[in-house]
């Protein structure tokens, strides 16, 4: 066997192919079966989709690199469940293309952020993080409140998401730009269509507090308030952390 290895090492292309084959074994065995094992992704028929405004905010979240410092993945560890809430389930990310689990926490995990703070808090915090959290190292994102939100390409974003499996209807895609405006302007006529398509439970507010225009701040705050609220699977699944009185802020 050792003799054959010496022979393989002397054949550059053969050796490279050998490395590729060996290195892919791990992936084939660990990743490929996830597509056929039922348990991989839980079912949640009641899960809602991101609204166009939330999706636009999600794109800003990606653009600004928020994922580099904030994870959206509560692991099955006691201290994480106690601090952040029920651990994350795969189904919660089924409409996340790409997923934003992140891999590093310079700031806290955001998987259960939706509804935890007020819109005003988010706006003030994004404009000047240290005004609210003195020890914060987060940069300020002042341009979000100045930049008008470009919603003209939202139908394209929705149809791209539909291609990868998010169940947007044709009606949702066709009216995505109007709905993005309507969600941030609940007193406008556009809001009627938004409520018709996304229901009255959807958050429709003047997210950035400025009624005159639709800004990137509106979109990002709408997205932040939606994180963890698309599916109730995690809190239902995690009965144990709901029923027992535990340390910290677990749900």
């Amino acid at each position, binding site marked *: 066997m050792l003799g054959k290895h010496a022979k393989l090492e002397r054949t550059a292309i053969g050796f490279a192919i050998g490395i590729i084959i060996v290195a892919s074994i791990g992936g084939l065995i660990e990743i490929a079966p996830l597509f056929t094992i039922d348990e991989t992704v839980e079912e949640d028929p009641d899960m809602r989709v991101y609204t166009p405004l939330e999706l636009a905010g999600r794109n800003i979240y990606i653009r600004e690199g928020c994922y580099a410092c904030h994870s959206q993945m509560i692991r099955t560890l006691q201290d994480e469940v106690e601090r952040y809430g029920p651990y994350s389930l795969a189904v919660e990310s089924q409409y996340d293309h790409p997923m934003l689990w992140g891999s590093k926490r310079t700031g806290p995990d955001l998987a259960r952020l939706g509804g935890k703070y007020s819109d005003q808090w988010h706006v003030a915090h994004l404009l000047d993080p240290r005004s609210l959290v003195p020890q914060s190292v987060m940069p300020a994102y002042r341009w979000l409140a100045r930049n008008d939100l470009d919603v003209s390409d939202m139908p394209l974003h929705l149809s791209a998401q539909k291609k990868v499996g998010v169940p947007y209807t044709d009606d949702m895609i066709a009216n995505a730009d109007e709905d993005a405006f309507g969600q941030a302007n609940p007193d406008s006529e556009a809001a009627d269509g938004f409520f018709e398509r996304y229901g009255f439970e959807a958050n429709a507010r003047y997210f950035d507090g400025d*009624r005159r225009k639709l800004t990137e701040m509106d979109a990002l705050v709408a997205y932040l308030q939606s994180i963890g609220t698309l599916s109730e699977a995690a809190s239902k699944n995690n009965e144990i952390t709901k029923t*027992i009185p535990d*340390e910290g802020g677990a749900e």
Partner: protein
Amino acid sequence: MSKPVRDPYTGRMTTGHEWNGIIELNTPVPKLVLLFLALTFLSSVIIWLLAPAWPGLNSYTKGILGIDQRTTLEHSLEKSAIKTAQWRTDIETLSFEDISRNSALLATVRDHGERLFEDNCAMCHGPDGKGGDGYPNLVDDQWLWGGDPETIMETLRVGVNSGHDEARISQMMAYGRDGILTLEQRRAVAAFVISLSSSDHTTPEDAETLSLGAEVFEQQCVSCHGPDGRGMQSVGAPNLTDDFWIYGGDITSIDNTLRDGRQGVMPNWDERLSLADRKVLTLYIDDLAQGASQ
């Protein structure tokens, strides 16, 4: 390439490679490394047998121990729940007075409450609970919705303008934007409101402005803030005669409030925090307030 030969100094064979007279020794991998490799492999075989490991087409090997991350987590949460069950039950069942007389429970409140407060409340109300621009002070004796423990706990549960089904609802109307008051009227009533605060809070406005302000106040403000401007806790209307201002107490800030209205939001903690946690926080806030007043 030359033929492998035995090296006279080490006694090992050479590989047969030679570069400008430099010959490579064919030293085998040390036995210790091979031993560790074998042990590592063996230990993974043991773990494969004990724990969930190899995936198949529709399922995976569950392992003899039948453990997984989720059940392990449940066990550790159960364990810590048993450890804290005693004081949690005490906090849930005892009255606020009984808890404040019990020094052991009070120590738990301070310890656990500090962590809860930092995780959930300090973001808006500040680490010392003194509030800030847009967020009420929790350690003074002025309360929007009432400062007795039961009321504080209820506010924690349902929140203010929070979207909770039983949320406390409070809204300061947008007198300017909705065209109810003119700029002159707003400025006058703002000056009047400032004049309520304290005697040393002198305003540059003349008596005529103040009387116009008083008139506007009488028509528009008393229904929520009361005839004397002391607020009304049933609708969360703040006291305008003290020196604490949530949104600023200068004439421009007050005018902004009058123009665009205010609808402050306090999130609800019904789902996020357990009953014991909310009670601990209520007691912790009370403790903070006592510390601040000393």
